[in-house]
């Protein structure tokens, strides 16, 4: 969603970790047990996040193409706003 987060991290005793690395893969689902012919692209990403103590955790997940495009647009938007600060 485009709404700004209303989370108070300090209240929850959580800090956001620092993004250390982002790996990605563009895949195409060829077929599945339910569809002989899919040709459905998807993006898979692995994010490496370092917490305050330096411990690194990894998170891997998939995005559909519309999700990826939305994510990509919003990251661009955010970078543009950062320029203005």
């Amino acid at each position, binding site marked *: 969603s485009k709404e700004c987060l209303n989370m108070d991290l300090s209240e929850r005793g959580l800090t956001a970790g620092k*993004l250390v690395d982002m790996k990605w893969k563009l895949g195409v*689902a060829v077929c599945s047990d339910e569809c002989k012919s899919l040709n459905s*692209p998807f993006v898979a990403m692995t*994010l490496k996040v370092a917490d305050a103590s330096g411990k690194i955790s990894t998170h891997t997940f998939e995005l559909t193409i519309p999700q990826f*495009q939305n994510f990509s647009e919003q*990251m661009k938007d955010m970078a543009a706003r950062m320029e203005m*600060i």
Partner: protein
Amino acid sequence: MAAHCDFSSLELLMKASSKEKVVKVCNDVYVMGSSQSDGLLSSVCESLGTRPNETKKMIESLSSVLKTIIFHGYTEPQEIQSLFPKDFHKNLRDLITKIALDNMNTWKTHSISTQVSLPRLVDFDWRLDTKMASDSISRTSVPTCILQMKVQENQTDVKTTPENHNINVELSKETLDTMLDGLSKIRDQLSSVARR
């Protein structure tokens, strides 16, 4: 798959009071059938006004036929019609054929959304902050982005909805720019995949 279908049980669909009811039953069977939802049997019985015993067999057969059609991705009515026995009720056969063709894309999309997958990103939020001071610098003005991504894990227990977990990351301008480079490479690759 369709060869093992008991086509005579499909005739229960004739009890539907309208074509719309048949459409609803087909949709429920394909969409809810894949998740083995408990509500499917009662929903179909309600739509047709039939008893659970006779309806169970019909649901199994209909599910088998619809799955075969979607698996092969048939686009021609004749391809679907040839699945049915020659003496099968022609109007019902043609109705099921039409419903399957009309819903092909929707059902395929549903299938994709429930197929084997890594955990899925379901939502993300972001906030732009300015760091004003820290224990090492008394006055500063550094913009940072806080990004929260909500990821839905794969289901481990068939009866419970899978858990969402949050990934909270802080991105400096430099990190964000590097990420944008990566994202634009993905976009380039996507356009070349789309062109093939």
